[in-house]
Protein backbone atom coordinates (compact mmCIF):
# COMPACT_ATOMS: atom_id res chain seq x y z
CA UNK A 1 0.00 0.00 0.00
CA UNK A 2 1.21 3.50 -0.74
CA UNK A 3 2.64 5.57 2.05
CA UNK A 4 -0.24 7.76 3.06
CA UNK A 5 0.25 11.08 1.40
CA UNK A 6 -1.09 12.88 4.40
CA UNK A 7 2.08 14.87 4.88
CA UNK A 8 3.66 15.90 1.66
CA UNK A 9 5.46 18.62 3.48
CA UNK A 10 7.28 19.11 6.74
CA UNK A 11 6.56 21.57 9.47
CA UNK A 12 8.94 24.48 9.56
CA UNK A 13 9.77 25.76 12.98
CA UNK A 14 10.72 29.37 12.67
CA UNK A 15 12.42 31.36 15.36
CA UNK A 16 11.12 34.78 16.05
CA UNK A 17 14.20 36.97 15.72
CA UNK A 18 13.88 37.59 12.01
CA UNK A 19 13.36 41.08 10.60
CA UNK A 20 9.92 40.06 9.39
CA UNK A 21 8.85 39.91 13.03
CA UNK A 22 9.87 43.42 14.03
CA UNK A 23 8.12 44.60 10.94
CA UNK A 24 4.96 42.78 11.99
CA UNK A 25 4.87 44.58 15.34
CA UNK A 26 5.57 47.91 13.69
CA UNK A 27 2.82 47.25 11.22
CA UNK A 28 0.42 46.39 14.00
CA UNK A 29 1.12 49.69 15.73
CA UNK A 30 0.72 51.64 12.54
CA UNK A 31 -2.50 49.96 11.60
CA UNK A 32 -4.12 51.41 14.68
CA UNK A 33 -3.43 54.98 13.55
CA UNK A 34 -6.70 56.90 13.72
CA UNK A 35 -5.99 58.61 10.40
CA UNK A 36 -6.54 55.38 8.47
CA UNK A 37 -10.06 54.27 9.22
CA UNK A 38 -10.50 51.64 6.52
CA UNK A 39 -8.10 49.14 8.06
CA UNK A 40 -8.95 46.08 10.13
CA UNK A 41 -11.25 47.01 12.99
CA UNK A 42 -9.74 47.24 16.45
CA UNK A 43 -10.41 44.23 18.63
CA UNK A 44 -12.58 44.57 21.71
CA UNK A 45 -10.92 47.52 23.43
CA UNK A 46 -12.93 47.02 26.57
CA UNK A 47 -10.82 44.05 27.67
CA UNK A 48 -7.58 44.87 29.43
CA UNK A 49 -5.28 41.99 28.65
CA UNK A 50 -1.62 41.24 29.26
CA UNK A 51 0.44 42.24 26.26
CA UNK A 52 2.15 39.47 24.35
CA UNK A 53 5.80 39.99 23.54
CA UNK A 54 6.85 38.75 20.10
CA UNK A 55 10.19 37.62 21.54
CA UNK A 56 8.30 35.10 23.67
CA UNK A 57 6.38 33.64 20.76
CA UNK A 58 7.23 30.84 18.41
CA UNK A 59 5.34 30.39 15.19
CA UNK A 60 4.97 27.46 12.81
CA UNK A 61 3.64 27.39 9.27
CA UNK A 62 2.99 24.47 7.01
CA UNK A 63 4.68 25.80 3.91
CA UNK A 64 6.91 22.88 3.15
CA UNK A 65 10.64 22.64 2.66
CA UNK A 66 10.41 23.56 -1.00
CA UNK A 67 11.39 26.90 -2.53
CA UNK A 68 8.15 28.64 -1.52
CA UNK A 69 6.90 31.78 -3.20
CA UNK A 70 5.77 31.44 -6.82
CA UNK A 71 7.23 27.96 -7.11
CA UNK A 72 4.77 26.51 -4.61
CA UNK A 73 0.99 26.56 -4.54
CA UNK A 74 0.04 25.08 -1.20
CA UNK A 75 -3.25 26.05 0.36
CA UNK A 76 -2.59 25.14 3.97
CA UNK A 77 -2.49 28.50 5.75
CA UNK A 78 -2.69 27.12 9.24
CA UNK A 79 -0.70 28.99 11.86
CA UNK A 80 0.51 27.38 15.06
CA UNK A 81 1.54 29.89 17.70
CA UNK A 82 3.22 29.07 20.99
CA UNK A 83 3.75 31.27 24.02
CA UNK A 84 7.05 29.97 25.35
CA UNK A 85 6.90 31.00 29.02
CA UNK A 86 3.48 29.43 29.65
CA UNK A 87 3.67 26.70 27.03
CA UNK A 88 0.25 27.58 25.68
CA UNK A 89 -0.22 26.68 22.01
CA UNK A 90 -2.90 28.02 19.71
CA UNK A 91 -3.70 26.67 16.29
CA UNK A 92 -5.57 28.87 13.85
CA UNK A 93 -6.99 28.00 10.49
CA UNK A 94 -10.07 30.18 10.58
CA UNK A 95 -9.40 32.02 7.36
CA UNK A 96 -7.75 31.41 4.00
CA UNK A 97 -5.25 34.20 4.62
CA UNK A 98 -1.98 33.60 6.43
CA UNK A 99 -1.79 37.16 7.72
CA UNK A 100 -5.31 37.03 9.12
CA UNK A 101 -4.67 33.69 10.76
CA UNK A 102 -1.55 35.10 12.38
CA UNK A 103 -3.53 38.03 13.71
CA UNK A 104 -6.38 35.88 15.03
CA UNK A 105 -3.93 33.40 16.55
CA UNK A 106 -2.38 36.26 18.52
CA UNK A 107 -5.75 37.46 19.72
CA UNK A 108 -6.76 34.01 20.92
CA UNK A 109 -3.37 33.41 22.49
CA UNK A 110 -3.48 36.74 24.28
CA UNK A 111 -6.81 35.79 25.88
CA UNK A 112 -5.56 32.37 26.91
CA UNK A 113 -2.33 33.75 28.36
CA UNK A 114 -4.26 36.37 30.27
CA UNK A 115 -6.54 33.69 31.72
CA UNK A 116 -3.53 31.56 32.59
CA UNK A 117 -1.79 34.21 34.62
CA UNK A 118 -4.73 36.11 36.05
CA UNK A 119 -7.28 33.34 36.53
CA UNK A 120 -10.55 34.74 37.87
CA UNK A 121 -9.13 38.26 37.80
CA UNK A 122 -8.87 38.07 34.05
CA UNK A 123 -11.27 40.27 32.06
CA UNK A 124 -11.77 37.27 29.78
CA UNK A 125 -13.07 35.21 32.70
CA UNK A 126 -15.26 38.02 33.98
CA UNK A 127 -16.77 38.60 30.56
CA UNK A 128 -17.53 34.91 30.08
CA UNK A 129 -19.13 34.71 33.52
CA UNK A 130 -21.25 37.78 32.82
CA UNK A 131 -22.51 36.42 29.51
CA UNK A 132 -23.31 33.05 31.05
CA UNK A 133 -25.26 34.78 33.80
CA UNK A 134 -27.19 36.70 31.13
CA UNK A 135 -27.99 33.47 29.32
CA UNK A 136 -29.28 31.82 32.47
CA UNK A 137 -31.41 34.86 33.29
CA UNK A 138 -32.95 34.71 29.84
CA UNK A 139 -33.69 31.01 30.21
CA UNK A 140 -35.24 31.52 33.61
CA UNK A 141 -37.46 34.32 32.38
CA UNK A 142 -38.53 32.34 29.31
CA UNK A 143 -39.42 29.39 31.53
CA UNK A 144 -41.44 31.61 33.85
CA UNK A 145 -43.33 33.07 30.91
CA UNK A 146 -44.19 29.63 29.59
CA UNK A 147 -45.48 28.50 32.98
CA UNK A 148 -47.54 31.63 33.38
CA UNK A 149 -49.13 31.08 29.98
CA UNK A 150 -49.83 27.44 30.82
CA UNK A 151 -51.49 28.42 34.08
CA UNK A 152 -53.58 31.04 32.32
CA UNK A 153 -54.83 28.53 29.76
CA UNK A 154 -55.74 26.05 32.47
CA UNK A 155 -57.71 28.70 34.28
CA UNK A 156 -59.55 29.59 31.07
CA UNK A 157 -60.52 25.94 30.67
CA UNK A 158 -61.86 25.85 34.21
CA UNK A 159 -63.93 28.96 33.56
CA UNK A 160 -65.52 27.39 30.50
CA UNK A 161 -66.62 24.32 32.36
Amino acid sequence: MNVPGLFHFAFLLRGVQTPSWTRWILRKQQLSLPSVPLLQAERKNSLKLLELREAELEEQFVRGDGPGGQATNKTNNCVVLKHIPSGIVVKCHQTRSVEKNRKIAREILQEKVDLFYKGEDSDVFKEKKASEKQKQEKKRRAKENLERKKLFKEMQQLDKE
Partner: protein
Amino acid sequence: MRCLTHPLLRKLLSLPLQCVPGQGTLSKGAVVSPKQLFLRHSCSAGRGFVTATDMVNYWQKVFETNGIPEARESSQYIVSFVLGAKTFQSLDSKSLHTPLTALQQEQIQQLSHRRLQRMPVQYVLGEWDFWDLTLKMRPPVFIPRPETEDLVSLVVEEEFQKCENSALCFPVAAPHPVILEIGCGSGAIALSLLCKLPQSRVIAMDKEEAAVDLTRENAHRLQLQERIHIIHQDVSHCSAKQLLLWGPIDVIVSNPPYIFHEDMASLDAEILRYEDLDALDGGDDGMRVIKTILALAPSLLKVSGSVFLEVDPRHPDMVEHWLQVHPDLLLTLRAIHKDFCGKPRFLHIQKQSS
Protein backbone atom coordinates in the same frame (compact mmCIF):
# COMPACT_ATOMS: atom_id res chain seq x y z
CA MET B 1 -9.23 8.62 -12.22
CA ARG B 2 -8.49 5.45 -10.39
CA CYS B 3 -11.54 3.94 -8.66
CA LEU B 4 -11.60 2.33 -5.27
CA THR B 5 -11.90 -1.29 -6.28
CA HIS B 6 -8.83 -2.74 -4.68
CA PRO B 7 -9.87 -4.91 -1.72
CA LEU B 8 -7.23 -3.33 0.48
CA LEU B 9 -8.69 0.08 -0.26
CA ARG B 10 -12.19 -1.07 0.50
CA LYS B 11 -10.86 -2.32 3.81
CA LEU B 12 -9.39 1.10 4.38
CA LEU B 13 -12.84 2.53 3.99
CA SER B 14 -14.21 -0.09 6.38
CA LEU B 15 -16.61 -1.31 3.76
CA PRO B 16 -18.21 -4.67 4.47
CA LEU B 17 -18.69 -7.04 1.55
CA GLN B 18 -22.41 -6.89 2.09
CA CYS B 19 -24.18 -3.69 2.92
CA VAL B 20 -27.68 -3.21 4.30
CA PRO B 21 -30.41 -5.55 3.04
CA GLY B 22 -31.67 -4.62 -0.37
CA GLN B 23 -28.40 -3.16 -1.54
CA GLY B 24 -26.91 -6.42 -2.76
CA THR B 25 -23.25 -7.31 -2.94
CA LEU B 26 -20.76 -5.97 -5.37
CA SER B 27 -19.57 -8.52 -7.88
CA LYS B 28 -15.82 -8.87 -7.99
CA GLY B 29 -14.02 -6.75 -10.50
CA ALA B 30 -16.87 -4.33 -11.12
CA VAL B 31 -15.96 -0.65 -11.18
CA VAL B 32 -17.54 1.19 -8.30
CA SER B 33 -18.19 4.87 -8.60
CA PRO B 34 -17.23 6.96 -5.57
CA LYS B 35 -20.90 7.82 -5.10
CA GLN B 36 -22.01 4.21 -4.72
CA LEU B 37 -19.15 3.39 -2.41
CA PHE B 38 -19.93 6.42 -0.36
CA LEU B 39 -23.59 5.60 0.09
CA ARG B 40 -22.65 2.11 1.16
CA HIS B 41 -20.20 3.48 3.66
CA SER B 42 -22.68 5.78 5.30
CA CYS B 43 -25.33 3.09 5.24
CA SER B 44 -22.99 0.67 6.92
CA ALA B 45 -22.34 3.25 9.58
CA GLY B 46 -25.99 2.76 10.43
CA ARG B 47 -26.95 6.38 10.24
CA GLY B 48 -28.44 6.70 6.77
CA PHE B 49 -27.34 10.31 6.41
CA VAL B 50 -24.15 12.12 5.50
CA THR B 51 -22.46 14.90 7.43
CA ALA B 52 -19.77 17.40 6.48
CA THR B 53 -17.23 15.41 8.46
CA ASP B 54 -18.16 12.23 6.61
CA MET B 55 -17.67 14.00 3.30
CA VAL B 56 -14.28 15.40 4.28
CA ASN B 57 -13.07 11.99 5.41
CA TYR B 58 -14.39 10.30 2.31
CA TRP B 59 -12.93 12.68 -0.24
CA GLN B 60 -9.67 12.88 1.66
CA LYS B 61 -9.27 9.14 1.12
CA VAL B 62 -10.22 9.43 -2.55
CA PHE B 63 -7.63 12.17 -3.05
CA GLU B 64 -4.96 10.22 -1.22
CA THR B 65 -5.64 7.12 -3.26
CA ASN B 66 -5.26 9.17 -6.41
CA GLY B 67 -2.06 10.87 -5.31
CA ILE B 68 -3.57 14.32 -4.95
CA PRO B 69 -1.38 16.55 -2.72
CA GLU B 70 -2.93 18.24 0.34
CA ALA B 71 -5.70 15.62 0.36
CA ARG B 72 -7.18 16.67 3.68
CA GLU B 73 -6.92 20.41 3.10
CA SER B 74 -8.46 20.11 -0.36
CA SER B 75 -11.47 18.15 0.85
CA GLN B 76 -11.94 20.51 3.79
CA TYR B 77 -11.89 23.61 1.63
CA ILE B 78 -14.33 22.09 -0.86
CA VAL B 79 -16.82 20.92 1.75
CA SER B 80 -16.59 24.22 3.67
CA PHE B 81 -17.14 26.17 0.47
CA VAL B 82 -20.33 24.27 -0.34
CA LEU B 83 -21.52 25.00 3.21
CA GLY B 84 -20.80 28.69 2.73
CA ALA B 85 -17.73 28.87 4.97
CA LYS B 86 -14.13 29.76 4.24
CA THR B 87 -12.41 27.04 6.26
CA PHE B 88 -13.36 23.84 8.02
CA GLN B 89 -12.17 25.19 11.34
CA SER B 90 -14.61 28.07 11.07
CA LEU B 91 -17.64 25.79 10.83
CA ASP B 92 -19.60 25.44 14.05
CA SER B 93 -20.47 22.14 15.64
CA LYS B 94 -24.01 22.29 14.31
CA SER B 95 -22.88 22.58 10.67
CA LEU B 96 -20.50 19.70 11.16
CA HIS B 97 -23.24 17.32 12.25
CA THR B 98 -26.18 18.47 10.16
CA PRO B 99 -27.00 16.05 7.34
CA LEU B 100 -26.03 17.36 3.94
CA THR B 101 -28.65 17.72 1.25
CA ALA B 102 -28.42 15.74 -1.97
CA LEU B 103 -27.63 18.97 -3.80
CA GLN B 104 -24.75 19.76 -1.45
CA GLN B 105 -23.33 16.28 -1.90
CA GLU B 106 -23.63 16.67 -5.66
CA GLN B 107 -21.83 20.04 -5.55
CA ILE B 108 -19.03 18.59 -3.44
CA GLN B 109 -18.66 15.74 -5.86
CA GLN B 110 -18.46 18.06 -8.87
CA LEU B 111 -15.82 20.22 -7.26
CA SER B 112 -13.85 17.21 -6.05
CA HIS B 113 -13.76 15.76 -9.54
CA ARG B 114 -12.00 18.91 -10.68
CA ARG B 115 -9.51 18.53 -7.86
CA LEU B 116 -8.90 14.99 -8.99
CA GLN B 117 -7.60 16.48 -12.24
CA ARG B 118 -4.92 18.27 -10.14
CA MET B 119 -6.70 21.58 -10.59
CA PRO B 120 -5.53 23.95 -7.85
CA VAL B 121 -8.13 24.38 -5.10
CA GLN B 122 -8.33 28.11 -5.83
CA TYR B 123 -9.46 27.42 -9.40
CA VAL B 124 -11.80 24.63 -8.26
CA LEU B 125 -13.60 27.04 -5.96
CA GLY B 126 -13.28 29.93 -8.40
CA GLU B 127 -12.21 32.20 -5.56
CA TRP B 128 -9.54 32.70 -2.91
CA ASP B 129 -8.66 35.12 -0.16
CA PHE B 130 -5.80 37.54 -0.06
CA TRP B 131 -5.62 39.22 3.33
CA ASP B 132 -9.06 40.81 3.86
CA LEU B 133 -10.21 40.42 0.27
CA THR B 134 -12.03 37.58 -1.44
CA LEU B 135 -11.06 37.55 -5.09
CA LYS B 136 -12.35 35.63 -8.09
CA MET B 137 -9.83 33.15 -9.45
CA ARG B 138 -9.80 31.77 -12.98
CA PRO B 139 -7.22 29.73 -14.88
CA PRO B 140 -4.69 30.54 -16.19
CA VAL B 141 -4.41 33.80 -14.22
CA PHE B 142 -1.70 33.46 -11.56
CA ILE B 143 -2.94 32.59 -8.09
CA PRO B 144 -1.65 34.95 -5.37
CA ARG B 145 0.71 33.24 -2.94
CA PRO B 146 0.50 33.82 0.85
CA GLU B 147 4.01 35.34 0.98
CA THR B 148 2.84 38.19 -1.20
CA GLU B 149 0.59 39.46 1.61
CA ASP B 150 3.84 40.65 3.22
CA LEU B 151 4.76 42.58 0.07
CA VAL B 152 1.56 44.58 0.52
CA SER B 153 2.46 45.28 4.18
CA LEU B 154 5.84 46.66 3.15
CA VAL B 155 4.32 49.14 0.73
CA VAL B 156 1.71 50.23 3.29
CA GLU B 157 4.38 50.71 5.97
CA GLU B 158 6.50 52.81 3.64
CA GLU B 159 3.55 55.11 2.96
CA PHE B 160 2.84 55.46 6.69
CA GLN B 161 6.48 56.31 7.33
CA LYS B 162 6.32 59.04 4.71
CA CYS B 163 3.20 60.40 6.33
CA GLU B 164 4.85 60.46 9.73
CA ASN B 165 7.97 62.08 8.38
CA SER B 166 6.18 64.81 6.51
CA ALA B 167 4.69 67.80 8.27
CA LEU B 168 1.36 67.38 6.53
CA CYS B 169 0.11 64.45 8.49
CA PHE B 170 -3.54 65.18 9.04
CA PRO B 171 -6.44 63.75 7.03
CA VAL B 172 -7.17 66.95 5.09
CA ALA B 173 -3.75 67.21 3.54
CA ALA B 174 -3.02 63.46 3.33
CA PRO B 175 -0.87 62.55 0.38
CA HIS B 176 -2.36 60.75 -2.61
CA PRO B 177 0.18 58.11 -3.50
CA VAL B 178 0.22 56.93 -7.08
CA ILE B 179 1.19 53.29 -7.25
CA LEU B 180 2.12 51.29 -10.31
CA GLU B 181 1.76 47.53 -10.26
CA ILE B 182 3.51 45.57 -12.97
CA GLY B 183 1.97 42.15 -13.60
CA CYS B 184 -1.27 42.54 -11.68
CA GLY B 185 -2.63 39.02 -12.30
CA SER B 186 -5.91 38.70 -10.38
CA GLY B 187 -5.48 42.19 -8.87
CA ALA B 188 -4.56 40.95 -5.39
CA ILE B 189 -1.77 43.45 -4.70
CA ALA B 190 -3.38 46.42 -6.44
CA LEU B 191 -6.76 46.02 -4.75
CA SER B 192 -5.30 45.32 -1.30
CA LEU B 193 -3.27 48.52 -1.53
CA LEU B 194 -6.31 50.51 -2.57
CA CYS B 195 -8.14 49.21 0.52
CA LYS B 196 -5.32 49.82 2.96
CA LEU B 197 -4.35 53.23 1.55
CA PRO B 198 -7.70 54.95 1.06
CA GLN B 199 -6.10 58.03 -0.55
CA SER B 200 -4.10 56.07 -3.12
CA ARG B 201 -4.64 55.38 -6.78
CA VAL B 202 -3.24 52.47 -8.72
CA ILE B 203 -2.17 51.88 -12.29
CA ALA B 204 -2.22 48.14 -12.86
CA MET B 205 -0.63 46.52 -15.85
CA ASP B 206 -0.50 42.99 -17.27
CA LYS B 207 0.51 41.56 -20.61
CA GLU B 208 -2.23 38.93 -20.50
CA GLU B 209 -5.74 39.94 -21.41
CA ALA B 210 -7.19 37.29 -19.08
CA ALA B 211 -5.39 38.94 -16.17
CA VAL B 212 -6.55 42.41 -17.14
CA ASP B 213 -10.14 41.13 -17.35
CA LEU B 214 -9.93 39.37 -14.01
CA THR B 215 -8.41 42.38 -12.25
CA ARG B 216 -11.18 44.54 -13.69
CA GLU B 217 -13.83 42.07 -12.53
CA ASN B 218 -12.37 41.94 -9.01
CA ALA B 219 -12.08 45.73 -8.91
CA HIS B 220 -15.77 46.06 -9.78
CA ARG B 221 -16.81 43.48 -7.21
CA LEU B 222 -14.97 45.48 -4.56
CA GLN B 223 -16.25 48.81 -5.88
CA LEU B 224 -12.72 50.06 -6.43
CA GLN B 225 -12.94 50.64 -10.17
CA GLU B 226 -12.85 54.44 -9.81
CA ARG B 227 -9.40 54.38 -8.27
CA ILE B 228 -7.67 51.85 -10.52
CA HIS B 229 -6.55 52.21 -14.11
CA ILE B 230 -5.89 48.85 -15.74
CA ILE B 231 -3.68 48.60 -18.81
CA HIS B 232 -3.20 45.66 -21.15
CA GLN B 233 0.48 46.05 -21.87
CA ASP B 234 3.76 44.18 -21.76
CA VAL B 235 6.30 46.03 -19.60
CA SER B 236 9.03 45.05 -22.09
CA HIS B 237 7.28 46.99 -24.84
CA CYS B 238 5.85 49.97 -23.08
CA SER B 239 6.97 53.56 -22.89
CA ALA B 240 7.22 55.58 -19.70
CA LYS B 241 4.79 58.10 -21.17
CA GLN B 242 1.87 55.63 -21.12
CA LEU B 243 2.28 55.16 -17.40
CA LEU B 244 2.61 58.81 -16.36
CA LEU B 245 -1.08 59.67 -16.76
CA TRP B 246 -1.25 60.66 -13.09
CA GLY B 247 2.21 62.16 -12.95
CA PRO B 248 5.39 60.71 -11.48
CA ILE B 249 4.91 57.58 -9.47
CA ASP B 250 5.44 57.14 -5.73
CA VAL B 251 5.77 53.37 -5.64
CA ILE B 252 6.30 50.64 -8.19
CA VAL B 253 5.29 47.23 -6.86
CA SER B 254 5.62 43.89 -8.54
CA ASN B 255 5.60 40.15 -8.05
CA PRO B 256 7.25 39.53 -11.43
CA PRO B 257 7.92 36.07 -12.88
CA TYR B 258 11.11 35.15 -11.00
CA ILE B 259 11.55 31.41 -11.30
CA PHE B 260 14.80 30.26 -12.89
CA HIS B 261 13.94 28.67 -16.23
CA GLU B 262 15.69 25.43 -15.33
CA ASP B 263 13.45 25.07 -12.25
CA MET B 264 10.21 25.34 -14.19
CA ALA B 265 10.03 21.65 -15.07
CA SER B 266 10.08 20.57 -11.44
CA LEU B 267 7.01 22.58 -10.44
CA ASP B 268 3.92 20.73 -9.23
CA ALA B 269 1.36 19.53 -11.77
CA GLU B 270 -1.14 21.99 -10.30
CA ILE B 271 1.04 24.84 -11.47
CA LEU B 272 2.29 23.44 -14.76
CA ARG B 273 -1.10 22.31 -16.00
CA TYR B 274 -3.24 25.27 -15.05
CA GLU B 275 -1.31 28.49 -14.36
CA ASP B 276 0.13 30.84 -16.94
CA LEU B 277 3.78 29.84 -17.13
CA ASP B 278 4.71 33.30 -18.39
CA ALA B 279 3.71 34.59 -14.96
CA LEU B 280 6.38 32.36 -13.45
CA ASP B 281 9.29 31.95 -15.82
CA GLY B 282 11.90 34.66 -15.26
CA GLY B 283 14.37 33.37 -17.82
CA ASP B 284 17.76 31.75 -17.27
CA ASP B 285 18.63 33.65 -14.12
CA GLY B 286 15.05 34.48 -13.17
CA MET B 287 15.90 38.18 -13.58
CA ARG B 288 14.55 39.02 -17.03
CA VAL B 289 11.47 40.92 -15.92
CA ILE B 290 13.13 42.25 -12.74
CA LYS B 291 15.79 43.93 -14.87
CA THR B 292 13.17 45.36 -17.23
CA ILE B 293 11.28 46.90 -14.32
CA LEU B 294 14.43 48.38 -12.74
CA ALA B 295 15.57 49.80 -16.08
CA LEU B 296 12.21 51.52 -16.54
CA ALA B 297 11.82 52.70 -12.93
CA PRO B 298 13.98 55.86 -12.95
CA SER B 299 11.91 57.44 -15.72
CA LEU B 300 8.70 56.80 -13.80
CA LEU B 301 9.54 57.42 -10.15
CA LYS B 302 9.56 60.59 -8.10
CA VAL B 303 12.83 61.26 -6.33
CA SER B 304 12.94 59.02 -3.25
CA GLY B 305 10.24 56.91 -4.88
CA SER B 306 10.47 53.18 -4.21
CA VAL B 307 10.35 49.89 -6.02
CA PHE B 308 9.12 46.89 -4.04
CA LEU B 309 9.72 43.49 -5.56
CA GLU B 310 9.04 39.92 -4.60
CA VAL B 311 11.92 37.72 -5.76
CA ASP B 312 13.60 34.35 -5.50
CA PRO B 313 15.82 33.98 -2.37
CA ARG B 314 18.88 33.93 -4.64
CA HIS B 315 18.08 37.30 -6.19
CA PRO B 316 18.94 39.88 -3.49
CA ASP B 317 22.70 39.53 -4.06
CA MET B 318 22.24 39.37 -7.83
CA VAL B 319 20.11 42.50 -7.88
CA GLU B 320 22.51 44.39 -5.62
CA HIS B 321 25.34 43.54 -7.96
CA TRP B 322 23.35 44.46 -11.05
CA LEU B 323 22.44 47.86 -9.61
CA GLN B 324 26.09 48.49 -8.83
CA VAL B 325 27.09 47.88 -12.45
CA HIS B 326 24.27 50.18 -13.61
CA PRO B 327 24.94 53.30 -11.53
CA ASP B 328 23.30 55.49 -14.15
CA LEU B 329 19.94 54.21 -12.93
CA LEU B 330 20.50 55.93 -9.58
CA LEU B 331 18.77 53.11 -7.77
CA THR B 332 19.98 51.71 -4.46
CA LEU B 333 18.99 48.55 -2.68
CA ARG B 334 17.72 49.92 0.62
CA ALA B 335 16.51 46.76 2.33
CA ILE B 336 15.99 43.03 1.98
CA HIS B 337 13.02 41.61 3.89
CA LYS B 338 12.37 37.99 4.77
CA ASP B 339 9.09 36.15 4.26
CA PHE B 340 7.28 34.29 7.05
CA CYS B 341 9.43 31.25 6.38
CA GLY B 342 12.60 33.25 6.96
CA LYS B 343 13.67 33.34 3.31
CA PRO B 344 14.97 36.60 1.77
CA ARG B 345 11.99 37.45 -0.39
CA PHE B 346 11.34 41.17 -0.74
CA LEU B 347 13.52 43.97 -2.05
CA HIS B 348 13.09 47.64 -1.30
CA ILE B 349 14.90 49.73 -3.90
CA GLN B 350 14.92 53.49 -3.84
CA LYS B 351 15.60 56.19 -6.40
CA GLN B 352 18.31 58.56 -5.30
CA SER B 353 18.38 62.24 -6.08
CA SER B 354 20.94 63.00 -8.78
